């Protein structure tokens, strides 16, 4: 919402000319207190912790804390893994979204529910589930190990797997929504011009839904960047190979709280940057 929208919304609630009613805002035509008070409490609840982070930040020692090799290592690992997880999500998630949006098949509702499940599943449970599937003795991991000598748990690749597991549903849901909103008749038009379904997808649908894919990818990337539970369960917490920023923050909090705040500030800055980057194309569209 832009500030203008907020003002016009308030004007509707106030039921009169915007500037006067909003400023005077008392009596029957103003914003009712039973709504205003909880709303302000809610706002404070969301904003105060972030302010506290800024207030308590060790600004003076910040340069030293942030230039340490450990921080850069964790940050680099986080960025690389989140980006790789997003890439994995794109490669398999976009076709999955297309399947859910465009192809009628029995049990489609169930499949959609299964895809959405990691959204609401506690990430730790996801991590345990991944161990059962892809761990050394997991139902799939056993064969990966025996046939290809590939072990995923407690490796950097494992971090990517854990993050993709948690983040991909965000991408799928977002892209599927965009696909449903996109006019399928463009694909029909492409078909009448001789395009196979795949060509129509590649040359017509994909460019049309690119903004939705970008928004979904950013969502997934942000989710992957912050992923903690599934990562620590499936990939462990080894500095340099599986210790991402959220794990580093948690660990630092126990030994060096100042460092934890500094690391948190970095993640906050990345989040704000993402939000600012999305403001124009995404927030307004929503």
């Amino acid at each position: 919402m832009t500030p203008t929208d907020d003002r016009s919304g308030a004007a509707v609630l106030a039921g009169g000319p915007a500037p006067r009613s909003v400023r005077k805002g008392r009596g029957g035509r103003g914003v009712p207190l039973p709504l205003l008070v909880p709303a302000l409490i809610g706002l404070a609840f969301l904003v105060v912790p972030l302010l506290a982070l800024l207030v308590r930040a060790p600004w003076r020692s910040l340069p030293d804390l942030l230039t340490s090799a450990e921080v850069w290592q964790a940050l680099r690992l986080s960025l690389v893994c989140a980006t790789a997880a997003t890439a994995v999500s794109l490669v398999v998630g976009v076709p999955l979204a297309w399947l859910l949006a465009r192809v009628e098949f029995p049990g489609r509702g169930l499949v959609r529910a299964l895809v959405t499940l990691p959204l609401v599943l506690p990430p730790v449970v996801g991590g345990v589930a991944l161990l059962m599937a892809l761990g050394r003795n997991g139902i799939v991991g056993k064969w990966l190990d025996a046939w290809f000598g590939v072990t995923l748990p407690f490796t950097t690749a494992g971090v990517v797997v854990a993050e993709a597991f948690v983040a991909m549903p965000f991408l799928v849901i977002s892209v599927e929504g965009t696909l449903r909103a996109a006019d399928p008749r463009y694909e029909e038009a492409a078909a009448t011009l001789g395009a196979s379904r795949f060509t129509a997808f590649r040359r017509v649908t994909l460019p049309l839904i690119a903004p939705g894919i970008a928004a979904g990818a950013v969502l997934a990337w942000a989710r992957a960047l912050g992923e903690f539970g599934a990562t620590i369960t499936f990939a462990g917490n080894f500095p340099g190979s599986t210790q991402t920023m959220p794990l580093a923050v948690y660990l630092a909090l126990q030994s060096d709280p100042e460092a934890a705040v500094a690391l948190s500030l970095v993640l906050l800055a990345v989040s704000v940057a993402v939000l600012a980057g999305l403001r124009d194309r995404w927030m307004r569209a929503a």
Partner: protein
Amino acid sequence: MTDLRGSAPAHHAAASEEGLDAHLVVERGTFRLDVALRVAPGEVVALLGPNGAGKTTALRALAGLTPLTGGRLRLDGTALERTPPESRPVGVVFQDYLLFPHLSALDNVAFGPRCRGASKAAARATAAEWLDRLGLAAHAGSRPRRLSGGQAQRVAVARALATRPRLLLLDEPLAALDARTRLEVRAQLRRHLAEFEAVAVLVTHDPLDAMVLADRLVVVEDGRVVQEGVPSDIARHPRTDYIAQLVGLNLYRGEAQGHVVRLGAGPSVTTTEALSGPVFVAFPPSSVTLYRDRPTGVSARNLWRCEVVGVETHGDRIRADLTGELPLVADLTTVGAAELELHPGATVWATVKATQTHAYPV
């Protein structure tokens, strides 16, 4: 359905291998489309009917976008019932054109040839040629949203024709245009359809579009063909009240000089619009006034001596079929018809106000 096909002009039945021979049956819930169509190459047929009659379903079935539940579909002797849309030699101009918004006009037109195997350069060369032919060379690089309605329509036509289809389908090709652009685009589309050597089928709910663009009308109501024939025949002998209302239009072709349009060697019609060159002139039957004797005090413009061929009742109106100086149809109230003592062979004077007639450039 057999009787309907039997009523089609003889030359269509004779050329069975060439052109379109379709019996489209699509059942969806309680709706059933059952339409037989035979169209010769070079012929333009308009499916005319109210909204929800099944015209667009018929068009989608021809394109392969809606599967047939029965019947058959043959184009130039080849069965197409099971052919997917991308493999049919069919071009479609959609109602709102569906130009790909992320591609330039040129790439929109090149899309078809490219999908059908042409190299990128060859496809673009073909596309440029088509855009040029439709007078759009200057807009080749424009994105669809930068094009006017008329330009977008022509790009859509170019895109459909660039694959060299054996069957061209047009869904309400003029519906998305404003009244002014419509006249211009209709005239251009008519020229392009006249040049098109394969089968063209267009869907419209606008009788004037149908009569100007098509050689033959097929009127569809509730999924069935209720009447088909050349426009003037249908206007003269509408089989249902709906058709009488819908296709009630006197339409002529002539040469305009200012406000006067000369129809061949015969009479002339004075019109609202001042044009020059070949035009269509149209006026509704309800705008015609009939007199038993040559009226005095009425200007001699648009006054013709006619003879009654027949009289038919449609709802609360009487439609008179007239020949003579200017063959035309006139709608009267029952009372008016009784006063005039209209009977076949009777002589009447027909007049129409210039303000009720409209001329369109061909």
